[in-house]
């Protein structure tokens, strides 16, 4: 599988602050590469270095097998990006903005192509309205159209769901999946929204204070033996008593809310379900808790720099 992005020992220092510290990672062709970290972790700085907006203090970036500092123009012709907010020229229409940025990317699309692109992001009806009349979600969709107009091989989306309502977030998620699965694009997506990343990313990199904490596939990052299960029934007190006097006793976790928490192997969940039904517990819900969130909090707060997962 071809390596689309290869970052080696990348650092960016501002006086005494290490915004990015000896970061190395690889993005393979076809990946939806989730770039996770808390605010200020160094995600945007790294992405800006990938787009040559920030000069690295040290390190090496290769894209499509070429060194970025030597083949900037060639590489950037194959990259589309949204960097934080989707800022465009507010006094121009969506159509004119798209046309303008297409020309900046070195292509001269036909009117049909421009309208197709706007249709893809649901802006065809508003194509000739000035952007100043657009909502944040519409600007974000226009930003995505701009990032894709020159048919790039690599798409970099920095916090693409920032400022969006739930519908907008879902739209972006679906678009990312469409770009990856249908259009076979490689994507680097940075976010601090863990559940969103878990739904779209094929590989994840978690950084904290500019350093890499973990890198790997979503499956690799979670231990199935440590699945956290949340149980809610019509009588949680009775359920708790039964569990405390059963073989499931060791799986019980301290309660964080009215629900009961158990840490068990993923494969044991159906057995527990059957057992609870046999004990006549009226189950309202039984769901595995978001393990990535727990995992993320664990690795970012522990400060341990876990060795990278490798395939």
């Amino acid at each position, binding site marked *: 599988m071809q390596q689309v992005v290869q970052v080696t020992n990348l650092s960016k220092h501002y006086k005494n602050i290490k915004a990015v510290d000896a970061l190395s990672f690889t993005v393979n062709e076809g990946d939806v590469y989730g770039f996770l970290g808390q605010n200020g972790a160094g995600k945007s700085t790294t992405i800006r270095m990938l*787009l040559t907006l920030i*000069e690295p203090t040290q390190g090496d970036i290769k894209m499509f097998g070429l060194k970025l500092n030597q083949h*900037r123009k060639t590489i*950037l012709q194959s990259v589309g990006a949204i960097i934080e907010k989707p*800022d*465009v020229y507010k006094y121009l229409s969506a159509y004119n903005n798209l046309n303008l940025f297409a020309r*900046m990317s*070195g292509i001269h699309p036909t009117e049909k192509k421009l309208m197709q692109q706007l249709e893809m992001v649901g802006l065809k009806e508003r194509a000739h309205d000035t952007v100043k009349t657009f909502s944040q979600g519409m600007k974000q969709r226009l930003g995505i159209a*701009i990032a894709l107009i020159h048919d790039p091989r690599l798409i970099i989306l920095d916090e693409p769901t920032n400022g969006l309502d739930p519908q907008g977030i879902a739209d972006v998620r679906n678009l990312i999946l469409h770009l990856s699965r249908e259009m076979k694009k490689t994507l680097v997506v940075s976010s601090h929204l863990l559940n969103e990343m878990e739904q779209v990313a094929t590989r994840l990199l978690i950084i904290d204070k500019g350093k890499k904490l973990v890198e790997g596939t979503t499956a690799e990052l979670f231990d199935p033996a440590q699945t956290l299960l949340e149980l809610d029934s019509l009588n949680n007190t009775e359920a708790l008593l039964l569990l405390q006097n059963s073989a499931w006793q060791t799986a019980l976790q301290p309660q964080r809310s009215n629900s009961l928490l158990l840490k068990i192997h993923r494969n044991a969940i159906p057995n527990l379900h059957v057992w609870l039904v046999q004990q006549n517990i009226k189950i309202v819900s039984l769901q595995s808790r978001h393990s990535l969130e727990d995992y993320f909090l664990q690795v970012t707060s522990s400060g341990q720099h876990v060795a990278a997962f490798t395939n």
Partner: protein
Amino acid sequence: MWQLLQIELYKIFRRPRTYIAFVAVAVLITIMQFGLKVDGQEYADFMLQSLGNFDVQGKLLNGYMVCYIVLQLMLVHVPLLVTLISADLISGEANIGTLRLLMAKPYSRTSIVVSKFCAVCVYTLLLLIWVAFLALFVSVVIFGKSDLFLMKNEYIVLIRQDDVFWRYGCAFCFAFVALITVASVGFFLSAFAENSIGPIVTTMSVIILFTVLGTLNLPVFQAISPYLFTTHMVTWKEFFDEKVNANNEALAGTLQNLPHIIHSVIILLIYIVVLVSATVWVMKKKDILS
């Protein structure tokens, strides 16, 4: 590069703000022409009164003279209008967030910066052509043609009407260089800012400071005066000074001090080259954080 210049011009001329300068110039010149049409004769009589017993034949208040009066006033204010655009070119994009998109495109930063500067040159040229059209051609239509009579500080200049037009042509070309110098200052400052207010105000402050320094009659300031661009911006007036022969007769088609005009142009060009080069250098080194 040509593609980038087209894009920059498109952005400039699609902004409503761009046309404020054209409207402002039209309003100001029209008001001045109206005033001179209504009360111009009184103005001319007052001017002649200060000369004592002086008999002038012909049409004193003609289109050429009106143009000169307009330019004397306008060329103080047009730099402000040019600064509104030049000081906004980089900082304005940083402010609205499009600078990062632009700088992530497959063009070198040098090309982007130089194309922006070329775009402001085109804008300035068009604004100056608009000023020339209104101040010279419209004035000639309204007030007619005649010899140009000018009162300078220590002498009077009388230029035959068939010797005037080319002088205005040269004066406008010179004004273009002077305005581009002001634009370069605003352009350079805009590389450091993330909104256009700072560079615009700073450019105007620099112009005021340099003008004050250049006019203060103190040896310490007079020593630096020849190096200030504001000192040379008013040299356009020297296109309306003729040489005189031994009998103190004006020689048509001549300029009194051509070397001084060339010297001023060179100083202004040095400012332009240094400031634009510095802008390119700053932008090449700059981390785009906006």
